[in-house]
């Protein structure tokens, strides 16, 4: 699968991580990848175990339970230039600038996810994503990593 431009939302500003996850989830719902219930599963999963990955990215996805609400594989991207804190408590700062919403069926998403992981393991690459000015730029940036 490939990233689609209509699955990428730039320059968002959100009050908290739940709102960020909802944005990423809504993109998945609107694209027909998941049922609205999946978004709740994404929030539940993040409360259970944080989906903050480090390097300013988070990859909210549903719980095991929530998998039944997935209709097809999809990945959404929400860019939050001003950042949003994904930590549980006030003491830690898990600022996130790029949120990847994940709905994976049959491991079809693993290729692109692996690309995202390799690309974002360099923090300067994440900065490029966080500064990107168009959806196409994000897609092109992620394409820089070829296995």
């Amino acid at each position, binding site marked *: 699968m490939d990233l689609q431009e209509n699955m990428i939302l730039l320059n968002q500003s959100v009050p908290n991580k739940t709102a960020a996850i909802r944005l990423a989830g809504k993109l998945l719902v609107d694209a027909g990848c998941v049922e609205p219930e999946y978004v709740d599963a994404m929030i539940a999963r993040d409360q259970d175990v944080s989906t*903050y990955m480090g390097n300013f*990215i988070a*990859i909210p*996805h*549903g719980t095991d339970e929530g998998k039944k609400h997935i209709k097809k594989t999809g990945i959404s991207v929400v860019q939050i*230039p001003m950042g949003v804190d994904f930590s549980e408590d006030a003491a830690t700062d898990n*600022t996130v600038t790029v949120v990847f919403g994940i709905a994976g069926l049959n*491991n079809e998403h693993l290729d692109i996810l*692996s690309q995202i992981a390799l690309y974002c393991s360099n923090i300067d690459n994440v900065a490029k994503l966080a500064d990107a*000015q168009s959806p196409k730029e994000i897609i092109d940036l992620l394409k820089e990593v070829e296995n």
Partner: protein
Amino acid sequence: MSQNTATADKPKTSLKAKVQKFGTFLSGMIMPNIAAIIAWGLVTALFLNPGGWFPSPTFIKLSAPMLSYLLPLLIGYTGGKMVDDERGGIVGGIATIGAVVGSSVPMFLGAMIMGPLGGWCMKKIDDMFQAKIKSGFEMIYNNFSAGILGMLLAMLAQVVVGPFVDAGTNFMASGVDWIISIHALPLANLFIEPAKILFLNNAIGNGILVPLGIQTASKVGKSVLFLLESNPGPGIGVLLAFCFFGKGSAKSSAPGAAIIQFFGGIHEIYFPYIMMKPSLFLAVMAGGVSGTFTFQLLDAGLKAAASPGSIIAVLLMTPKGSYVGVIAGVLVAAIVSFLISAFILKRDKSDPDADDFAGQQAAVQEMKAESKGQTNTASTSTLDYKDVQKVIFACDAGMGSSAMGASLLRDKFKKAGLENVPVTNMAVRNLKDEPGLLVVTQKELSERAQQKAPHAIDVSVDNFMNSPRYDEIVANLKVASQEKIDDGVQPTTQAVNATPASDVAEINFDLVAEIDFIHHDQHTGSATMATSLLKEQLAKAGKKTTVKRVSIDDVADETDRLVISTPETIKNLKSRYTNVQALAVADLQDKKLSEVVKNVK
């Protein structure tokens, strides 16, 4: 003894331990499926038409397919799963249907062969190919390899197993036939009892004894042949012996099994107990022989076949005048079988039975782990890494975070020449405790992972994306394989594109009270990240200087401000402000930033 199995590759495994291990393996296939055997048994006992307690032409339709298909398939699945987890189970199940279709008798024995064989073949094929599958094609590979293998094995089983089992059945049958012909009837039990344990009881009972019995009964009104196979005595003897002298779960489950066997007539339920300790074959054989001898002595017989072989069904079929003989025969069989079983079980006292066996094994390994120190990463010595054969990333659903972590580590392994160590990801609930496993989890899941795989090396990370633990794992594995760590292992964070650090020298750090990162339309995200990163680094270094993200229009033109941004922005900034100190950096990993951390207050 338990250590022998713990380290299976030790050459000096005694024959006894091997036999016992085999018995444990066989019963491992049957035990989880006892519930299904009970379901089938109850259906048959309740609704057999005629002869059941509540004859029902509708519900009895369940009986035959359950016996012929459900039970063998479940056993085949379980057997495959014991060898190679879920994939092995599926292939084992598919392979078993070949044995089922290929033979006319219920294929328990075939299932017990094809199930594990299917699992084993799957494992071998996965070992060969899995590492070579390009990412994205795993699902296609997984499904088609298992499907094709299953199909081939099913075809093989259909062609090979059927005739093989038929030959075995015929051998047993002709043995029984021959013994009847020489009028040494009690010896028939020497064939019947082992045949029963191998689930050939129905073939023998309905195939040979019942037809012959009907002939006799039609002449004299009763036949002892009906009692040979349906006599519940030998089985109840073994089960009672387990009730008193067994150990572990075998002991605690035996009373329930005894009731089901004796009153429900489901003989199958005691077969696993015998497989656990194959010397108990002697007990049932002796019980059967002496029971049949007693029947003959007292001229006992049944009017018709007692099916199922419950004491109630047996008594219902007993003609008037034969009660004493029938009851005596059952009792004698039970007592003989009980005494011999008790003797065998007690004599083997030092020899833990199947359940304790596994338990002790686990206990020994636990003790070993404890003596080594905690299973925590901090104290895991590189010694343990020698045993690492694979790495699994575990997360809640196995969908996202673990997959990303796994790709990163796989990449690092590749660069470090550690390609022979596979890195996969899965949901934490699917983790299995297996040797040579290293599990990476997020901190929150570490406990759950340890419960699932207590003997694995457990590495927990805060951060899947750039955890220093990854490099530790790579380094430890490299040390373990006694190879030099090459430069490729260096963490990416050190691959820095430095700009000359000279302009840092121009900054008067004594004045700096606040560091501002400039954000504007094109560089908001990176400014957010830089602010956060620098804050964290300053906090770690114990520095007190404030860090802020400010818009280029809001910069306070004071000398106590250090403004950091990209070279273009700094150029622009210098034309607007005169007092602020400014520093241009190439990116978030610019060495100048660490200089700043070092120098500020």
